[in-house]
């Protein structure tokens, strides 16, 4: 301004631009907290597994643990039970969710809410209940002895892998159903109507219209349940089965009952590796679903 006119300074309307704190600084406190109570302890477990009591660092503890029959049994049990439970939960969950979503009946909504509550109860309650149903003095055996007059009933599988399998399928099926019900809600009912009017019967509609749409959720729910089964402890602990040992049970036994921390850490690392690999798969699948949904809308 060449002329000498002086403008009064206006200082009220424009607030000074606040100094912005960088996002990473804001993220620091929670990440640091997680680091102290989760990441660092986990790293210590890894460290301990390669640090034998005698000093130095070696993988000798791994060789020792891998050589034990108990470990190999536990590994096999864990994988087999987890795979079986996941398959069972997927089948049962798909069938039940299908009925709730597509063959609706009064009370179906209440069942959906019941499932939400079910998810927040601890797993060992299921084993506890099964003890009353199939235990040596439970309903099923009571029915049998009452009917035949025999001294003992035929149901004695709770302490075997089959008992664990049954309990895990019961407990984890709702974990499959919830994402499935979400996926089913996304399907336009008119698609089913049109498919039927084009001549498709119910099985074909399920196979060709519903299943492809639900497949990502089914895969995601399945891998989540697989991870949870690999990590399940309460159900196995409550059966009190001595012959059913899984990796988490082995960690507990070595650390708390035997005081063998190095051995416990080795088993823990194996368990984590197994779970993380599958969890990575789960995250990839859920990310792909999100992506697919975004592409569609």
């Amino acid at each position, binding site marked *: 301004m060449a002329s000498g006119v002086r403008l009064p300074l206006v200082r009220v309307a424009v607030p000074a631009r606040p100094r912005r704190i960088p996002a990473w600084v804001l993220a620091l406190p929670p990440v640091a907290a997680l680091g102290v109570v989760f990441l660092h302890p986990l790293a210590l477990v890894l460290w301990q597994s390669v640090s034998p009591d005698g000093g130095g660092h070696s993988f000798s503890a791994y060789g020792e643990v891998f050589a034990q029959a108990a470990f190999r049994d536990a590994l096999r049990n864990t994988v087999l039970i987890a795979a079986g439970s996941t398959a069972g939960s997927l089948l049962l969950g798909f069938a039940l969710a299908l009925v709730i979503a597509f063959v609706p009946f009064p009370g179906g909504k209440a069942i959906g809410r019941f499932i939400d509550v079910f998810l927040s109860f601890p797993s060992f309650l299921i084993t506890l209940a099964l003890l009353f149903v199939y235990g040596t003095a439970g309903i099923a055996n009571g029915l049998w002895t009452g009917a035949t007059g025999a001294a003992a009933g035929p149901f004695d599988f709770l302490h075997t892998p089959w008992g664990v399998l049954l309990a895990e399928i019961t407990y984890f099926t709702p974990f499959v159903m919830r994402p499935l019900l979400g996926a089913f809600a996304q399907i336009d009912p008119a698609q089913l109507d*049109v498919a039927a009017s084009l001549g498709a019967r119910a099985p074909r509609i399920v196979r060709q219209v519903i299943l*492809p749409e639900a497949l990502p959720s089914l895969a995601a729910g399945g891998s989540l349940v697989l991870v949870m089964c690999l990590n399940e402890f309460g159900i196995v602990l409550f059966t009190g089965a001595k012959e059913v040992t899984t990796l988490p049970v082995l960690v507990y036994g070595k650390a708390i009952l035997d005081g063998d921390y190095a051995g416990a850490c080795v088993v823990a690392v194996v368990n984590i590796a197994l779970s993380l690999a599958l969890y990575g798969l789960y995250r990839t699948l859920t990310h792909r679903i999100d992506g697919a949904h975004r592409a*569609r809308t």
Partner: protein
Amino acid sequence: MNTGIRFDGVSVAYGGNIVLDALDLTVEPGEVMALLGPSGSGKTTALRAVAGFVQPVAGRVFIGDRDVTDLPPHRRGVGMVVQQYALFPHMRVDANVAFGLKARGVHGAHGARKAPRDEIAARVTEALEMTGMSAYARRYPRELSGGQQQRVAIARALAVRPGVLLLDEPLSALDAQLRSGMLAELARLHRDLPDVSMLYVTHDQIEALTLADRIALMDRARLQDCGTPQDLYRRPRTEFTASFVGNANLLPVTVTGDGVRLAGAVLDVPAAGAAAPGDPATLCVRPHAIGLGEGPNALRGTVTEVQWRGATHRLCVDVAGHRVTADVRELHETSSLGTEVTLHFAARDAVVLPATAAPVGPGGGAAHG
């Protein structure tokens, strides 16, 4: 293939609510019948009863000579097109169109024994050509625009060569411009497929007037009126018809010996059959049938509103407390707000209807825009 549709006293109820009340209606083979009505009038329920998605509590549904009331949807052999297209999102366009052919099992057409696979491919190509979508066969539905998706949905319904095509608000999800294009397209399809009967559910009178051979007018779960579009437009039988099909001035009149009386003015409109002399009735005149200036059946009033609508002006005139709407081509200088004007109409452009206790339907007695 001569298949019509016949509703024989069909009633549908949901939890004690009657949503379709004793519908009697016949769609002739090759006819396009529009089910027109406001939402909740029962028109979609009637369509779903034909498709088999609702079970009537009374009455029978026939497709051709076949009583299909108890048949499951997949054995009824109808084609269906819905508002939101309902294309299977995980299938490409050609797989969508082939779905019905595979589900039904293709019967060798034209007596030729082709391999099913070739036959399906041929039928898919044919259906896509019919709707102008051949170039998009390998696309996924999400890669298509709304109008294109709807063409695929129509191709999918036609591929199974249904005798009956059910269309449930097929154009409602499209914008106005696309809609008029698709309307012309549907009319062409109907000419190309003269044997296919179509039941076309809509709440849009323009679609019904443009496309239908006949219109069945629904309101409150009941069939109110049925006739050709011209018939319903020119000679409505009820106030509801008059107000729902096209715009109408509905004016309360008293029947005299040889005409009707509107607020002191005697109009030379025959009221035969509508009401006895001395009784109240309703006079129905379309806005475009009313002219400005002196003439037969003159009405005098004050201009309360003037809207310019391109080719015409819409005048709202207060005639002794009644609102009369007139669409006039040339507007005189004098016809500005508040001026006194004279309106007139020809007797053949007016209909006298039996009076109803209260104004019926969305028209509510006044013309809508």
